């Protein structure tokens, strides 16, 4: 009888419930055809860089490969983060999952946290797959040319930066999902918020749109400036992680607060 089941309010119980939701979300994300379609398009774009290298605008060939590949991953990753987050959230809503899940002794912030953790794990896999393709393309060309451009350490750092950025886009989309009525609206609004995050650095230069400065600056996670300096230094990486953690916490907290007041 349920009288025997205690409602466990400990942090361990919260983590356990979030892990269950995250595992479920990850499983669903890996079965999402849209996600793998976008990964396949991204991989094709990265591979295309090999044939587009003649149009390198005077840049070094290996630099062009890295720039084009990272650009493709950045574009497709942003799309992936927004679309997969919205799709996973609204798949649940359309299936009446809140009725199954939220009527159990799980807090709504645990549900949102678990969902975000699942999306973050799925994004790690997607980014890993795309970075692997990019690393292979660059390594093959380096061998053909007998030159070295990017070390494995730098490629891993670029992958980590991309992942940090995409998880922020996922958190922005989750914030929209917490009150939105459709996946189309949530993914479109999530993408618009991501664009605002990319344009955020211009507000500092122009001194206009001061309100936008409260929004995370996604350009901080762009790989290109770091490539010139052969990677990210330990201190800069830690500062970036701190910046990311602050905004991820704020966005996820706000999403959980809004979701707490939603009725089904």
């Amino acid at each position, binding site marked *: 009888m349920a009288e025997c089941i*205690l409602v466990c309010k400990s942090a361990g119980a919260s983590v356990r*419930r979030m892990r269950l939701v995250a595992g*479920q979300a990850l499983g669903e994300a890996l079965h999402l055809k849209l996600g793998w379609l976008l990964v396949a398009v991204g991989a094709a774009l990265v591979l295309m860089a090999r044939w587009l290298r003649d149009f390198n605008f005077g840049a070094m060939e290996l630099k062009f490969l890295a720039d084009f590949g990272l650009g493709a991953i950045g574009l497709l990753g942003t799309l992936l983060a927004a679309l997969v987050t919205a799709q996973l959230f609204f798949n649940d809503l359309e299936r009446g999952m809140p009725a199954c899940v939220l009527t159990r*002794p799980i807090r709504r912030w645990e549900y949102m946290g678990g969902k975000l953790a699942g999306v973050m794990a799925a994004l790690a896999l997607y980014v890993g797959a795309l970075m692997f393709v990019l690393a292979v393309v660059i390594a093959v060309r380096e061998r053909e040319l007998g030159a070295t451009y990017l070390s494995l350490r730098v490629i891993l750092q670029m992958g980590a930066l991309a992942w940090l950025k995409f998880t922020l886009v996922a958190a922005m989309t989750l914030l929209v999902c917490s009150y939105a009525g459709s996946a189309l609206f949530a993914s479109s609004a999530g993408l618009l918020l991501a664009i605002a995050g990319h344009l955020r650095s211009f507000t500092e230069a122009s001194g206009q749109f001061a309100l936008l400065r409260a929004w995370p600056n996604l350009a901080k996670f762009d790989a290109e400036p770091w490539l010139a300096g052969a990677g990210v230094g330990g201190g800069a990486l830690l500062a970036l992680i701190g910046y990311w953690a602050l905004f991820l916490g704020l966005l996820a907290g706000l999403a959980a607060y809004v979701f707490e007041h939603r*009725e089904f």
Partner: protein
Amino acid sequence: MRELSEVSWAIELENFGKCHRVGWTGRRAVAVHPLSLKVARGEVWGLLGPNGSGKSTTLKALAGLIRPTSGHCRIMGHPAGSAVARALVGYLAESPQFPPHQTGRDYLHYCAGLSGVPSRERAQRVAEILTRTGLAAAADGALATYSKGMRQRLGLAQAMVHEPAVLLLDEPASGLDPEGRLDLARLIRELAGRGSAVVFSSHLVTQAAAICDRIAVLSCGRLLAAGTPAELLGENARSAELSPLEKFYWERVHG
């Protein structure tokens, strides 16, 4: 916290009312007018009424999915929607859908985990509930291959997997064949026999009369009548568990 055994009523609705805001103007639409009901432990209540009568809204409020606009809903003395109340409730939504790639067994493991069933007991509890709901043979098949009736049975299984003290079922007979409906009736009576309070909504008046200890009739969000089937329907309330057509079907299918 009060001991659950000290609480006399499993469910208490005290002047529960619900209004929805509709459209851009935020116009208030009344879903349920103030309604008071008390359900004892081990009692089976049927909520009957046409579409839009407020049955699902009442069940959702008890499950904690919506908040009352007025009044109170309590589960074993705890406010509906609180973590303790949710631990005591099993809820089946109308026409439930499930992740198509998962198996029935995996899905029930997930639900049992969220409900706080200890991991060492989970496998046994899931196997038991799969047998009780007649899904044991299909337990390891992908949910995408489940028929509507099987999904409904799985919905029942997920609501009962943690052996709740209060079971809330929204149209549980929807999509079930006559055999499934008899199984459902048996399951509901079995749960009530173990001390659980069961409240379900239905359009099937004869079935409700056969299963329920008490019936509440709702229309347009108002409680029209409440009482035992005998009080409401007279002596013929429990005369037939199956309609003549159902009896014919049963005899043909099961010899």
